[in-house]
């Protein structure tokens, strides 16, 4: 095996922080090398240095043993280094071919674009590496996974030998992730080398040949997935032992906190997306709502919290039937909502932390005295919650926008959990978070349950649903397929329900519920 790329002692500091501290990395030909680390560990900085977007303060880059200076993405491309960004750099109204040739358009007879040659080349590449793409398709009509394949083709078209993929699975469905991994395997089989940036343990275990773990800008170590387990990797990432298993006692459900009967909801485009949903949640239990995203779960939550009007049906919150819900009425009844889009609904990013921590009760004592705010109390409350919920920030005076995703989520959790609540509605509470934050938030949810709060948990991560729920409702096309006891079901069975295969059919499919799953391993 030959070393195609070597980074030696790369150091990069920004005012006030050392983003990369003498990082070493070698990439062998034909390997998938995962760069694993929490948000803010320095992965993206390192790759931006390699791609010529930042200039390192120290250290050198060797491509095939030759020392090189990379000043711009063009330099990187000339050295055979290509990058597939997390957020695609595609023009939606153009075709695949047009997007691929963008920036290096070949011409015929001086002025005419030579699209057909490019289209042939695109077909050739897609055949060679198993990247199925129609060169004449318009980008905006393509699924996200296919758009990603176009990005990969773009890189290959520029004859890249080394591919950097920045969090490539963040935007993909589980099936698309499978597809991507197959493509990556084909690419390395044909001699390409890949750096794969991620913070998801499950993925590196599945696909990487070697794993380099970064933490706080330093290399923690390089390991082979055959020789480590997820717990060990998580500990390397976070810097301490991480409990990958949610330890919880058996639930002790008490009276019913939320009853939903035959609920119908339309989304903002007026499509009927929740169609006759009935369930209840009792105090002291977690009801998990599983399902592939886009099956009405989001709208269900928005309807329950007053953000979307109810088309038909009945909702009974804490003993009172409510016809017309407004968000304030819902909140005042003792309902907490951890929204799935934390930046859109959960936070005012340009507000300081202490204001975000009273966003729902700023008008109530002790935070307000009649019409005037009690700034001192609000700031003290902020400082107390920042400490209590372990929100990593230099002070409560910084804006919410300056926090990392995990800490933003802790901010919301801190605000919602600190109010006197009896029902918690949490939608995708750990989406995009790193292992440490996931562990933290899961433990807090179970803590709330044990305090006697009713919890409605909506998540598209099946592992999360299994780890936290006492009962599981599976939603498919706006309806609940079945509500099962979490201790008497299996991942496979839930998977079939999520695909819309009803219980009566599962006997035919041959999947029988597994008995007694007490502790579900949480690997993300």
């Amino acid at each position, binding site marked *: 095996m030959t070393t195609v790329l070597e980074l030696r002692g790369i150091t990069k500091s920004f005012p*006030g922080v050392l983003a990369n501290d003498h990082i070493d990395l070698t990439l062998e030909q034909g390997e998938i090398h995962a760069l694993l680390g929490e948000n803010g560990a320095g992965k*993206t*900085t390192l790759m931006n240095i390699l791609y010529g977007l930042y200039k390192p303060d120290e250290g050198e880059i060797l491509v095939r043993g030759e020392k090189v200076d990379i000043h711009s993405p063009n330099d990187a491309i000339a050295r055979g280094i290509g990058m597939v960004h997390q957020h695609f*750099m595609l023009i939606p109204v153009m075709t695949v071919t047009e997007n691929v040739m*963008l920036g290096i358009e070949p011409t015929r007879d001086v002025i005419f674009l030579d699209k057909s040659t490019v289209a042939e080349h695109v077909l050739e590449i897609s055949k060679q590496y198993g990247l199925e793409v129609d060169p004449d398709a318009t980008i905006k009509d393509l699924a996200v996974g296919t758009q990603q394949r176009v990005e990969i083709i773009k890189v290959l078209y520029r004859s890249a030998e080394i591919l950097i993929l920045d969090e490539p699975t963040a935007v993909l469905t589980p099936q698309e992730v499978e597809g991507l991994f197959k493509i990556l395997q084909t690419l390395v089989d044909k001699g390409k080398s890949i750096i794969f940036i991620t913070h998801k343990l499950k993925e590196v275990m599945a696909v990487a040949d070697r794993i380099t773990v970064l933490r706080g800008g330093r290399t923690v170590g390089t390991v082979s997935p055959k020789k480590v387990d997820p717990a060990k990797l998580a500990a390397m990432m976070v810097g301490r032992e991480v409990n990958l298993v949610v330890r919880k006692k058996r639930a002790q459900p008490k009276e019913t906190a939320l009853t939903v009967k035959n609920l119908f909801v339309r989304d903002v485009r007026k499509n009927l997306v929740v169609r006759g949903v009935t369930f209840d949640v009792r105090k002291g239990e977690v009801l998990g709502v599983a399902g592939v995203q886009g099956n009405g779960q989001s709208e269900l939550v928005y309807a329950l919290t007053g953000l979307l009007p109810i088309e038909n049906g009945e909702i009974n919150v804490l003993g009172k039937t409510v016809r017309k819900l407004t968000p304030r*009425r819902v909140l005042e009844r003792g309902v907490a909502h951890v929204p799935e889009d934390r930046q859109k609904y959960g936070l005012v990013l340009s507000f300081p932390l202490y204001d975000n921590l009273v966003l729902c009760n700023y008008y109530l004592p002790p935070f307000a005295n009649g*019409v005037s705010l009690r700034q001192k109390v609000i700031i003290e409350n902020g400082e107390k919650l920042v400490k209590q919920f372990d929100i990593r920030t230099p002070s409560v005076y910084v804006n919410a926008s*300056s926090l990392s995703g995990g800490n933003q989520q802790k901010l919301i959790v801190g605000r919602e959990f600190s109010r006197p609540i009896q029902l918690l509605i949490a939608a995708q509470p750990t989406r995009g978070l790193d292992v440490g934050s996931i562990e933290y938030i899961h433990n807090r949810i179970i803590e709330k349950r044990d305090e006697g709060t009713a919890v409605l948990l909506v998540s598209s991560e099946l592992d999360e649903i299994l780890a936290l729920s006492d009962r599981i409702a599976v939603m498919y096309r706006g309806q609940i397929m079945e509500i099962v006891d979490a201790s008497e079901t299996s991942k496979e069975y839930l998977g079939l329900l999520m695909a819309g295969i009803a219980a009566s059919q599962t006997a035919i499919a041959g999947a029988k519920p597994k008995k007694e799953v007490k502790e579900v391993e949480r690997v993300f």
Partner: protein
Amino acid sequence: MPAKKDARKSPGSTSSDATPRPVPQSKQPAETSGELHREIRRPSSAWVDNLLMPALAVFTGLVVGGLIIAVANDAAITAWGNFFQNPVAAIKASWDAIIQAYSALFGGALGNPADIVAGFQTYFATGQTAGLYKAIYPFSESLVLTTPYIFLGLAVALGFRCGLFNIGAEGQFFMGALGAAYVGYSITTLPWFIHLPLALFGGAVAGAIWGAIPGYLKAKFGAHEVVNTIMMNWIAFRLSDWLLNGPMKAVGYRPVTSTVEATAELPRFFPDPLRLNWGFPLALVFALLVYWFLFKTTLGFEVRAVGANPDASRYAGMSVMRNFVLVMTLSGALAGLAGATQVLGTDHWVGQGFSAGYGFDSIALALLGKSHPLGVVLAALLFGILRGGATSMQSLARIPIHIISVIQGMVIIFVAAPAIIRWIYRLRIGTAEQTVLTRGWGK
């Protein structure tokens, strides 16, 4: 007094392209080089954004204005024609033109320091006030011009804070003036301590109605406030034409209202011709009130939250629509008060063409003041000084009065496009994240 000619054109139209958001929030990428990096530079970044950048924008605007003066001056043009014979003379002529223009501008706005000192000396020595009053007359006039700017700047800034672009300050200003004038001249038997507050209130209500209508239309029907406030401006202009030629016309030929009763006037501090009156301190009081409202009350918290993120505000139980109506009403009331103080303190009657661009200037002014009451007061002072000195610059230095609009326009461009200022002065704040935006293929 001051030329109220065409000031409405340039700053208003340049700023309409500007972003309506008062405090531009730079989007943070999901993962950057490290959170600590961002957190540490934040305090200094706030200082740079809110104080240094506007100050540099003003300075740069004056420099660019100076360059235009340098090439627009007859003597300078002639001297530049002979550049190859005598390059020194050409540069000197331009330099002289700039110095002359700006000393005329600021002298005309602030007065001559030597005269002011001499005035005070005479006053303390002999008790004679004539010299002192003459010396401080220019500054008094600048503060008179500043007064409506403060109210109007507050009106627009309040809208910005709630995410609303109130272009209708001009019309609300006009309606406020008419309302105050009507109460001021039509009631004749009240003592001043009832009549004056009533007249001010009349102006505020007229402006509030003019602001509330587009606010209600937005909340109820989703009609965009920019379009509706512009329409309301035109209705105000034409309505006032009719009122001034009909129901509110004073006896005589000119389309003006009667002079308001003495009981409705805002008292002046000095004898004629100094027009500085209680309107100015009242404007400062209202700046404090708006500050208190925005930052110290629950209602202000809602207004700012709705302006910064309406979705999160709805999630948190606030009524976005109610806030829109409330803010447009208050904004209109502030603009109406601008009109009221102008009538009751300065003019004492209303004529056609009364508003003359104050309302449009104030959009630029609110942007320059970063929609903060203190910033608005400072920006209003600057605009008042520019407008106050413009006439003297024209008469003494023969620089067209429109150069003031050019300077104001320049200042707004620099405020609206901070990247230019950062580039000119090599301010490196935030570049680490901006670089990431340039990633991708190509250059």
